[in-house]
């Protein structure tokens, strides 16, 4: 509560270190959505130095075009986080209660049901039906506590990710456990949509829940949960890792082997929340390289220079003002096609959704498919 008070007392300028900005333009230069929208985050950092116009700035439709990819913050030479300024402006709207109904509903759903998808908490584990899943209770000891992600839990299009993980973990015989129905949204997207209060509450509740297990590691399936737990939850006891860390470990220790061959040309798309934000570049590639018969190719815009797919920053719930040019996901799919990839591999549920849409919009269904790494290798592990 104390921290709450402190942030309240800090001015907007101090909170975001706006006076540290030298207007170099690296943030806007790196921002992936500028090809599609009027968003100019440097300009917003500049204009926000006049606190009297904050409410006006908050009304600019383009502040909702930000995907929270974090490129601006990674590139800023002065340690500012321009993306947080946009989120601060969104927060003004949230406080005023003047956000889009879709955003409002998602936030309310997180508050009531622990997920942003307007689904009942009681159905969170429906995806587990028919699977041999170990659920652990608070107080229990477990090596790897798995955190599922609301989207994976509820969206049939990506539930396969978790199902394949269960299959692999059972095969490897590792000590793991799922949380079950009490698992609640990491609220990373609530933060990105400007609902700071809800996010802070989620941090408190989730920290209490997650710390109630005797878990050595917390394994996030989605990079979004991973990034939030790793960078925004200060008090978690367990070490936070992404599932690709775990999978690489299992492959190295030969606890699992990818036995079936697969003659595909695989290209890997680095998710912003995994790569750019947390420097996890090598693990996904290591896993994909273990697939016999498959060839791993690279995008020109790879690793630190990967192009955002526009899945984050609340984009699942707001359309934003972006109208110019094609969707970045489509650019991505086209680039993958140019390299003659047959599998566009990703390691994030949001990327699956955006890229799959783009693939369909482009009519590439025949030549190529989008596959989350777990969905891709699951069937190949015997």
């Amino acid at each position, binding site marked *: 509560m104390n921290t709450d008070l402190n942030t309240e007392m800090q001015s907007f300028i101090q909170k975001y270190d706006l006076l540290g900005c030298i207007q170099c333009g690296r943030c806007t230069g*790196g921002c992936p959505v500028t090809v599609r929208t009027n968003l100019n985050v440097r300009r917003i950092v500049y204009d926000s130095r006049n606190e009297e116009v904050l409410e006006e700035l908050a009304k600019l439709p383009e502040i909702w075009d930000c995907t929270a990819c974090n490129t601006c913050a990674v590139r800023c030479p002065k340690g500012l986080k321009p993306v947080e300024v946009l989120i601060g402006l969104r927060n003004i709207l949230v406080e005023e209660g003047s956000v889009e109904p879709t955003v409002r509903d998602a936030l309310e759903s997180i508050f009531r049901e622990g997920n942003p998808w307007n689904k009942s908490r009681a159905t969170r584990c429906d995806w587990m039906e028919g699977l041999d899943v170990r659920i652990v209770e608070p107080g229990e000891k477990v090596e790897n506590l798995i955190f599922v992600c609301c989207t994976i839990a509820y969206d049939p299009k990506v539930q396969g990710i978790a199902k394949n993980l269960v299959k692999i973990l059972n095969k490897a015989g590792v000590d793991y456990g799922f949380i079950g129905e009490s698992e609640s949204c990491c609220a990373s997207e609530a933060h990105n949509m400007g609902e700071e209060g809800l996010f802070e509450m989620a941090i408190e509740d989730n920290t209490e829940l997650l710390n109630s297990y005797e878990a050595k590691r917390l394994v996030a399936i989605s990079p979004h949960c991973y990034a939030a737990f790793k960078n925004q939850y200060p008090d978690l006891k367990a070490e936070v890792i992404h599932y690709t860390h775990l999978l690489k470990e299992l492959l190295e220790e030969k606890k699992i082997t990818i036995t079936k061959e697969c003659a595909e040309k695989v290209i890997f798309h680095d998710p912003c929340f995994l790569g750019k934000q947390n420097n996890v570049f090598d693990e996904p590639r290591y896993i994909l390289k273990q697939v016999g018969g498959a060839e791993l190719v690279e995008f020109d815009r790879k690793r630190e220079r990967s192009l955002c797919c526009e899945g984050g920053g609340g984009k699942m719930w707001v359309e934003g003002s972006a109208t110019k040019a094609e969707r970045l996901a489509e650019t991505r799919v086209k680039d993958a096609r140019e390299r003659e990839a047959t599998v566009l591999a990703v390691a994030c549920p949001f990327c699956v959704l955006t890229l799959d849409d783009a693939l369909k919009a482009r009519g590439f269904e025949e030549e190529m498919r989008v596959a989350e790494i777990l969905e891709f290798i699951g069937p190949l592990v015997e």
Partner: protein
Amino acid sequence: MNNKPKIGVYVCHCGMNIAKTVDVEAVSEFASRLPYVKVARNYSYMCSDPGQQLIKEDIKNEGLTRVVVASCSPRMHENTFRKTLAAAGLNPYYLEMANIREHCSWVHENREEATAKAKKLVYAAVAKVRLLEPLEEKEVEVEPSALIVGGGIAGIQAALDIAAAGFKVYMVEKTPSVGGKMSQLDKTFPTLDCSACILTPKMVDVASHPNIELMTYSQVEDITGYVGNFNVKVRKKARYVDINKCTGCGACAQECRLAGTIPSEFNMGLGKRAAIYLPFPQAVPAKYTIDKERCLFLTRGKCGKGPKCIEACAAGAINFEQQDEIVEFKVGTIIIATGYELFDPAKKPEYGYADYDNVITGLELERLVAASGPTGGEIVIGKGEKAIVPKEVAFISCVGSRDESVGKPYCSRVCCMYSAKLAHLVTEKLPDANVRIYYMDVRAFGKGYEEFYDRVRREGVRYIRGNPSEIFKRGDKLVIKAEDTLAGRTLEDEVDLVVLATGLEPRQDAREIIDILKLSQSADGFYLEAHPKLAPVDTATDGVYLAGCAQGPKDIPDTVAQAKGAASSALILLSSGKVKVQAQISNINEATCRGCGYCVEICPFGAIDLVEVNRMGNIVQVARVNEALCKGCGACAAGCFSGSAQQKSFKDQQILPQIAVLGAMK
């Protein structure tokens, strides 16, 4: 002490600096009543001539044996008043300062409280001064020679100046040739003089000057001793070429089986050399060196039917039996001129330096535009069929400078100008090319620099205010993703060549010298000067000076100026021939020392050694202070477990009464 001490106390007003907050009248009246105080006075400026005169007269007329001056910090005027005492025939170390300015009047507002505190400080000084002992200032002879580490333009200039003054100079350069980075430059801003034309004569002078002993391909291994008397040990690495026989004809390099296969350091990897090589045509000395990491004979013990170089060398200079040679000599002073390294742009992966051949650094472009470079001065990128002459050229400034995201918050000072220079050279060589410079600020601070910047702009180089964020490829073109911040417009600028203006950073091997000489580094990692304004070439180690980019990023004019400054400081020492050593040094009572060696560890100046002594028939180890090295910092005295280490003028029995007064008095 037979006679009772006679103490004089002098309270300074320092104009209004002290008098405004401290009742100086009351303080001197108070002092006059303290034990052993013979006279107490106050005066407007004690440091002025009449102020000092007061003290001198009192010493004469009143027979004072001790003096307390209550004024400013001892850092300011302790020396002044020591001279006053000496002039009046009193030992200068019979002086104690009470700092009632920095420690009192400047930091307090309440006059009453400040006055009370001033009294306390004066009382404490009086309590101590009577216990002080006379000290003697010793002088040591200065070895009339200098060591210069690093043979870039900084080291070269310093060496030439000292040699011209008639002193012996030893120059140690790590690589096979002197010249440093300047030898790699094509032209130099802002006047566009050809770098080689102005540098080569100086390089030659260094090698031929009778007072300079040049050791290239050499390294300082160890330095012991102290100001005026340093013992230096240098390793001359084996070149496997007898430099007395080598004529520099180059027949060996032509014949070498690895000719044209090894990336040339001088050409930034853009050209190739043999395993036996001269780094560049104007290298000094013009002697060949065998790269022992690459040479077939040295790495595998076999080179075809026999080393081709041996066959080719008419002078019979090749000698695979050659060993490293250690040479030792003495010098009085040392100048560190080890220069800098460039920021590795691969640490900013967003610019794709590791991915694209046509993203290069400024120094690489210097080699491309230089007539002596790998392309004979033609700007072509890539090789064979893929080679292109760029039409769209972009420079990106501040790569690895002013950038906290890579831990480089400082400005590298030369990149703005070298970008302007290189942009000019590109337009000169490729009149059809479109050249732009992406910048965040242009820092054209030097003489003639703004004018040069004006010229380059008017010649058609476009300045775009925005620091690019990313580079990727589209077809054959590089796409620079940036914002023109003045227009508020985002850009995807398609170009053929990107030149990264990489910043200057401390050398990776900077620690070698730090370990040998105990130098300090500033926050940016460069060697730290003694004072940023008033002692810019000195270091905390007496007799050791800094020159050039070793101390921080600099252009050539500043480097040369600093080198001349360092040479002048070194010459002051050398020409006076004597150096005073600190009198208030530490002393270790060998009778009580337990020889634990803790002080040896904590002494920041390496001034204490453990020595063996005969204590009643037993050989025991005790610590001993090297009086010439000791700076009187007191670390050993504070750290000693047995109280054996005591610092003169700060002995326990001298400062404890002082502390007691501070504690007791209300």
